[in-house]
């Protein structure tokens, strides 16, 4: 697993308080990991900070799963 994926996973695990093995490629933050909509906003804020990038609101809306987040950050960083 890439370094970016590890760092994203760490943020998700810490923020949502879920088991690491639940955070799979297709795991949806809301449907599978118990996030509410404000959690997803917070996750995006945390990604922005961790990776020093800006994630615009329309892009943030497309980040639904762990895999989406990793892909977006790989392309942005």
């Amino acid at each position, binding site marked *: 697993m890439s370094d970016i994926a590890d760092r994203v996973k760490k943020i998700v695990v810490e923020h949502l308080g879920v088991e690491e093995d639940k955070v799979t490629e297709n795991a949806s933050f809301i449907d599978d990991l118990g996030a*509410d909509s*404000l959690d997803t906003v*917070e996750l995006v*804020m945390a990604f922005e900070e961790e990776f020093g990038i800006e994630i615009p609101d329309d892009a943030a809306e497309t980040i639904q799963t762990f895999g989406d987040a990793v892909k977006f950050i790989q392309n942005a960083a």
Partner: protein
Amino acid sequence: MFDLSGKCALVTGASGGIGAEIARALHARGAVVGLSGTREAPLRELADELGERAHVLPCDLSDAEAVEALPKAAIEAMGALDILVNNAGITRDTLFMRLKDEDWQAVIDVNLTAAMRLCRGAVRGMIKARWGRIINITSVVGTTGNPGQANYCAAKAGLVGLSKSLAQEVAARGITVNCIAPGFIATAMTDKLTDDQKAGILGAVPMGAMGTPVDIAAAVVYLASSEAGYVTGATLHVNGGMAMV
């Protein structure tokens, strides 16, 4: 009780009678205060009076860019923004039949839109900190209406709706959003009323007296405190009984 040591509070309209008293009260409880307003001189005077833990942050709330920049400036000056008090407000009173678009827009811009922008700028850090207090100063007339103040009443009622919605969104993050609705409060503005006008007003107030800025400031201290952590989406009416809602 009501200790605010270590908390950083931004107060808009701190050059006015009520805003200055709010800043004094928060400061007296130990908070660092950011004093915002359009006129810098009275803010400086207040900062000098308060001494340490007071920062002057001038801002024209009708200027959208300046409003966007204010929370950042506040965090830079104070180190954090834990308590936001949207107190600033303007009036452009006129009978509805004569209400011009610009009188409507100016009041909505400053009293409602600027408050929204400041909430938006402040809430991010509060979410991270898992603690925050937003206190919007509305008015009794936002609930009751008032002839000649359709624009002002609409803005104040709008602020109540905004506060309740935001309160629900951020409640689980340790952030409360409340309103304080003053009734008739003795300020420079009410000094201009004639004795007859004052008598007319006081006839509608069961307590038979105008409130003072201290009455409002005390309510702010309460809602800003950790002790008020279970109170959110509420409007605290401070009006001597003139409207019991």
